[in-house]
């Protein structure tokens, strides 16, 4: 049996705060690196855009499911009262739509809300219990006060020595190799 050597996933640099991370991300992008990611303990505004990460597609998903929920909720009430089980109550119209609005609204919110949560998780490829960055012991700080930038080894411009030197120039508190 051959035990595979862990492959190099990339180089991870730690920065002091969100502004330093944002500045470093701009330089990394300007240097032409494309396969990168940044990690922070809270949302740093503009970071994803600077790194050129794909824009969120959460809003269209939520809109779509909201519309489907509205149509579905209204259809259910309409179908039950007009087609499937019409009841003549004092000659009132079968399609008494104002009475269906409450349920239509609740169905809209339910579908849109669930799709916001699930859509976000699916687009983020979560749940994902394993990721190479977790192999770095210092990465635990990413949920406390650590701001990290990772240049991945599969970037066409990646060269272990040159990239390490480049990252060192950005003023990080540490640069480590990520294996995984």
């Amino acid at each position, binding site marked *: 049996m051959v035990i595979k050597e862990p492959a190099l996933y990339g180089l991870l640099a730690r920065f002091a705060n969100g502004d330093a991370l944002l500045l470093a991300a701009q330089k990394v992008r300007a240097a032409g690196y494309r396969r990168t*990611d*940044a990690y922070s*303990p809270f949302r740093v505004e503009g970071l994803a855009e600077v790194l050129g990460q794909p824009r969120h597609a959460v809003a269209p998903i*939520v809109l779509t499911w909201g519309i489907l929920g509205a149509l579905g909720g209204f259809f259910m009430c309409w179908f039950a009262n007009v087609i499937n089980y019409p009841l003549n109550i004092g000659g009132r119209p079968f399609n008494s739509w104002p009475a269906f609005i409450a349920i239509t609204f609740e169905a809209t919110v339910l579908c849109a809300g669930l799709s916001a*949560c699930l859509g976000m998780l699916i*687009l*983020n490829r979560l749940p994902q*219990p394993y990721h190479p960055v977790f192999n770095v012991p210092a990465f635990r700080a*990413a949920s406390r006060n650590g701001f990290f930038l990772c240049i991945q080894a599969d970037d066409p411009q990646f060269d272990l020595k040159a990239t390490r030197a480049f990252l060192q120039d950005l003023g990080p508190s540490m640069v480590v190799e990520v294996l995984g």
Partner: protein
Amino acid sequence: MSAVHPPSSESVLAPGHTYASVTDKILGLVLRRPTPLWLTCLALSAALLALLGIAITWLLYRGVGIWGINIPVAWGFAITNFVWWIGIGHAGTFISAFLLLLKQEWRTSINRFAEAMTIFAVMCAGMFPLLHLGRPWFFYWLLPYPNVMWLWPQFRSPLVWDVFAVSTYFTISVVFWYVGLIPDLAALRDGTTRWGRRVVYGTLALGWRGSAAHWQRYHKAYMLLAGLAAPLVISVHSVVGMDFSGGIVPGWHSTIFPPYFVGGAIFSGFAMVVTLAVPLRYFFGLQDFITIKHLSNCAKLMIVTGSIVAYGYMMEAFMAWYSDDRYEAYMMADRALGHYGWAFWCLIACNVCTPQLYWIRRVRETPWITFLLSLVIQFGMWMERFVIVVQSLHRDYPPSKWEMYYPTVWDVATLLGSIGLFCTLFYLFVRYFPVIAVSELRELVKEKAPEGSAPVGV
């Protein structure tokens, strides 16, 4: 920590905090050794929960006849408790959704436990209509499901709207709460070395690693959830209000119910937030995060919502006179001077007069007074629902139907038991989850006390 500087009435976060210090402080409260006080409180709540278990068991065995309900007062304590509990939940969603959209930064340190309060309050609330069904094991008849008789729920009935509203509200509240928790669960996973905790919190955190792309989508999803939850909270109590105004009972059949109920719900909910916040900040040493400013703002919101409620009472009395409806007029006279007059004046004292004390700055900024007044308001709001349910029903149209309502020991046991359920869940929550949203608190640190660019030690 709190003794170093005097409490400021203007700050939402005490100075001198860093990303690391807020994280360590809040996460340090999770899973620390149980204190005797916590164990005592949990034991007392669990005893009340056991009482609920007994009350429900006896109810399932004997039926709703063990309660004091009769015809005409068929709703009794069960629906009073339902409206009271679901109203309490509303402030949690108000804080987490409305105040987020309005960029009110003071919501940051109170939204997590307020959302937990919402979930537990809705659980207590949802229990009562189901138990009140008479045959609770057929609760699924309320839902549109394929059945052999091909029957549907009556979608034109506010009572069916309520099933949809409350179940949607519960689901969305849980989702909103959980999405907010994910980064903090990741912090709990990373902050512990114990294997069991790493596994449990790591599983719940879904492998969150704080990637920039993830944060961006997360933020979008969270804001959208807030945007959806904000009208939802209005709709839920409006529908609860319509449960009443849909009935042709004098004292119920009124268009003012939906807005007046929403105001009352947020009023009682903020009272509950204060009731929970004051002991929480005291016993867990959270004075740096839940400041006087938070309590003061909650008090101000109680003045506003209390005034909406007072306006509702006023309009009810005015419409009883202006409509020239003799049944409405009789209902109003009976409400103030009849058998349940004491309850009416009690609610006026608690809900209209008590919040006026919050105009005084010293009252707003003294935690124990704010706390006591919040208890008075919650009691008053329970009395309000009692009066609306019981007093309106007990004088129906023909005098031959008039009947008094007296609660039995089982009514009281179920109410106390539901408080036990709420407290038990809340005590477990404060031990197993961070009571303050740490990832949002770090953003607040960034705005209030930006850390220098000096490298942080690894």
